[in-house]
């Protein structure tokens, strides 16, 4: 099951890299945008891998904590970064 998770996370990582590339082509990103987006994506991927591992070993509480401590900051970072980028885009247009 963990092997399948790694495979799916790999596919998700490729999609994220492609998404970032597309975004960088349409919108000029500064270092803060890059940091926020990459860190956010890494945290989300890490939270998924952690939580699946924890559930597989039979400790769902560790899975929930992983989602809370890694996944939530990841979502917040990614959302904030995207919001700033979109706000800048609207201002320019």
């Amino acid at each position, binding site marked *: 099951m963990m092997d399948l998770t790694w495979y799916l996370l790999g596919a998700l990582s490729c999609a994220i890299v492609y998404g970032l590339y597309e975004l960088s082509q349409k919108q000029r990103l500064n270092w803060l945008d890059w940091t926020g987006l990459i860190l956010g994506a890494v945290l989300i991927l890490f939270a998924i891998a952690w939580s699946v*591992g924890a559930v597989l070993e039979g400790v769902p*509480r560790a899975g929930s904590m992983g989602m809370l401590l890694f996944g939530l900051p990841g979502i917040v970072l990614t959302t904030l970064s995207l919001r700033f980028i979109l706000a800048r885009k609207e201002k320019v247009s």
Partner: protein
Amino acid sequence: MNEHDMKDEQNDTPEKSTTNESRRNFLKLGAAGAGLAAAAAGGVTVLKRMEGLPLDHFPLPINDEYVRIDQRNQINTYSFSKKLNDDHPERTKKFHDWNFYEKKKGFFIGPYRDKAAGQGQLDRALGAAGFFSPVSQLGYKSTGMDSLNAGVASWEQTMLAKEKYKFASPEEATLCIKSAARLFGAVRCGITPRDERWDYNPLYDAATDEVLTWEKDFPFKPRSVIVVMVDMDYDAIATAPAWTTDGATGDGYGKAIKLAGQLAVFIRQLGYQAVASMNDLGMNVPYAVAAGLGEAARNGAVITPHYGPRVRVAKIYTDFDFVEYAKPRDFGVASFCKNCKRCADSCPSKAITLGDPSWGPEYSTDPDYIWQASKGVFKFHNDAKLCFKFWIENDGSCAACIASCPYNKPDFWHHRLVDAQNVIAPGPVHSFMREMDILFGYGKVSDPERVTKFWKSGAKI
């Protein structure tokens, strides 16, 4: 600036701009490459650190006060001998009028208790089955795991080949021995020179109440000690201190002595003398530390990478010395143990010290009370009597200090990541990691849910 110059500048601008951008991109790429290289170098350093830093000396300081341990003062050996208990009424008096031999008579055979807490007939059956292999099947004396010269741990040099096998190099010899150990079930194996400091002196056979010496009774002069480890089942140990744990403890002993016996035969078939040993002959923890397999922990056990204290140790004494000896290693465990104290908090008998390492026991200075303790080694000193008293009262083994240890984790990637972090992080982070371990739901003892979970673990296969 004249008109001509201005024209030149205007003509140069697009080219200059392209050059600057290329340079910027080149610098960005360079920075990204340097970052990746730094991350890779950091990763390699952490991996190396996780394998342990080799040490040129034994990691625990020892002073002149240290004397070799008399096997009669080893708590298991002592508790199995009526004679030893009768010889020392002062010890009984000082320890809650607790005669270990008398109290231990009903050990492991008491009435069933709370089924939900893992002390019912089902759990008792598991424990009895776990201990079946070393006690009955392999002929190991039923006086306990400290019996010497019996069954597969016999001192008789049977199957000793007449011709001595010649290895091409010590490295090859070590690799062959480790390969054989792996085949027979070892998860760790290391070879260290025999060190008399860690051997009991004199030896004592609790089954016959015989005092034995290395010089007169042991069949040969050992030169090397091969130390092997087997792991115990995570789910069963997690039920501690329920009787369900006994299944893993007994099975661990059985696997370890079987492995040691097979390796002893392997060495003898190579033409060299060898004797297998479990808890008898010498102390497992210092030998395992000397063989580079782990570090001495607060809970009195040896903590080894990946398994933590969830291992059983056995050893093979041999006169074969054409081997590459291992060095003790620093895995960062001692530093973690200083800050963690989770085992001490979880110990039902409060036998584990909450203090720092010391040269001797801090719980008492009365010689009639601390007769089993070693002095002159700078380590964590625990009261083995309290620990064993709880075993007897619990009518089963305990392993709460193993189950609660943050190093005791199953083989999942995220635990290896935390291990790596613990190796490089300084002390205050260790205290934080202990709290995180609790918050994430690991290492809880006396938890009926763990018993239920164990009895569902068969669904995995």
